[in-house]
C-alpha cells in the first residue's frame, strides 16, 4: 500500500518530516523491466504473439497447376510454314549468321538462288516448339542465337558448302538431309560421296565380279580350265604336305 508523503506534516521550511513512511509498495509501471512472478513469466512465454506469416509474393513460387499457354496466331502460321518447309525440302541446313549486313545477305541469297537454295528465317521459339513435336527433335539445341535455315529441294550440299565458305559470317551448325540429321562433318562427307548411280554401279560390279570370272573361265576352251584345275590340286596337295611336315616337327 502506498502512502505518499503529506505536505502538511512539514512544520517549517527546509525541515524534513518527523515520520517517513518506509513501507510503500512498489509501483506497477517502472522505468526498468519489473521482475515477473515465475508463473506469470511462464504464462507470458506460452501466450506470446505469433504474427501471421506474410504470404509469398505472387510470382515467387511456380503455380501448382500447369498453365498451357495458347500460341498466338502468328506462331501457328509460322509453324505451318515450317511444317511445309520440312515436308517439301529434302535438304535443310542450320547455320548461324553472326550479324551479316544487308548487302552480305543479298549477295548470299543471290548466290544460293542460282542453285535453287533458299534462305529462311524463323523465330527460335516457334522452331523449338515445332521440333519438340516432330521427329527432328535432335535439332533443337542448334536453334540458339541468330540462326538461319538454308533449304533446298535437291540435296546440293557441295554447292552450298562452297558458297558458304566464301562468306565469313555464316557458320554451319548442322542439318537434316533426306530425313537424316547430320553434323558439319557429316555434311562434308555427304558432299564427297559420289552420285547414287555411280555407287549402285560399283556395288553391282563388286557382287558380280566372282560370278563373271567363273562364267568367263567356263566360256574359254575346256583344256585351259582342266590345266587350271590340275594346277590347283597340285597346290592344295603341296600345302597339305607342308602343313603335315610342320605338325610333325612341332
Amino acid at each position: 500500500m502506498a502512502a505518499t508523503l503529506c505536505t502538511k506534516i512539514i512544520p517549517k521550511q527546509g525541515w524534513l518530516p518527523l515520520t517517513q513512511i518506509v513501507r510503500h509498495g512498489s509501483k506497477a509501471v517502472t522505468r526498468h523491466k519489473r521482475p515477473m512472478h515465475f508463473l506469470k513469466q511462464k504464462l507470458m512465454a506460452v501466450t506470446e504473439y505469433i504474427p501471421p506469416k506474410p504470404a509469398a509474393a505472387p510470382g515467387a513460387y511456380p503455380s501448382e497447376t500447369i498453365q498451357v499457354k495458347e500460341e498466338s496466331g502468328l506462331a501457328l502460321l509460322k509453324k505451318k510454314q515450317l511444317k511445309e518447309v520440312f515436308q517439301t525440302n529434302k535438304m535443310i541446313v542450320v547455320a548461324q549468321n553472326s550479324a551479316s549486313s544487308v548487302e552480305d545477305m543479298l549477295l548470299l541469297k543471290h548466290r544460293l538462288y542460282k542453285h535453287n537454295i533458299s534462305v529462311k528465317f524463323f523465330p527460335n521459339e516457334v522452331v523449338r516448339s515445332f521440333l519438340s513435336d516432330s521427329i527432328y527433335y535432335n535439332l533443337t539445341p542448334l536453334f540458339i542465337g541468330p540462326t538461319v535455315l538454308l533449304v533446298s529441294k535437291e540435296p546440293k550440299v557441295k554447292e552450298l558448302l562452297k558458297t558458304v565458305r566464301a562468306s565469313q559470317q555464316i557458320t554451319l551448325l548442322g542439318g537434316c538431309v533426306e530425313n537424316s540429321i547430320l553434323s558439319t562433318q557429316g555434311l562434308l562427307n555427304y558432299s564427297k560421296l559420289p552420285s547414287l548411280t555411280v555407287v549402285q554401279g560399283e556395288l553391282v560390279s563388286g557382287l558380280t565380279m566372282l560370278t563373271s570370272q567363273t562364267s568367263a573361265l567356263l566360256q574359254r576352251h575346256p583344256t585351259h580350265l582342266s590345266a587350271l584345275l590340275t594346277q590347283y590340286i597340285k597346290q592344295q596337295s603341296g600345302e597339305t604336305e607342308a602343313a603335315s611336315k610342320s605338325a610333325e616337327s612341332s
Partner: protein
Amino acid sequence: MAASRSTVVLKAVKKIAVQFCPFESNIRSTREFLAMVSSERVRATNLNCEVTAVTKHDKSEPVVDVMYVDGERLVMKGAKLTSQEMFSAFQSRCIAKDPQAKVAGKK
C-alpha cells in the same frame, strides 16, 4: 551490352578462333560471343583481324582462342562463362593493349 563502349577496338588482335560443338547444351555463351565479336562495327575497327568459327562433333568444350599482335594468347573456355563475362574480359585486355598506341598517337 558492354561496359564502357559498345564496341571493342580490335587493333591489337591478330586472330580470333572460336570452336564449339553445336549439339552440346553449354555453348550458348560462346555463340553469343561469336555474334558480338563478328558484328559489323567491331570488325570495322580492324579489317585484318580474322574471325573464324569451327564446328566439331566430339563433345569437346567450347573454346575461344584470341591471338594478339604481340604474340600473347587469350584462351577462354566458354562452358561455364556467360557471354558478358567473356566479352568484358576480352575488352579489358584489348583496351590494355591498345591505348598505348592511342596515347602515343595523341602525343
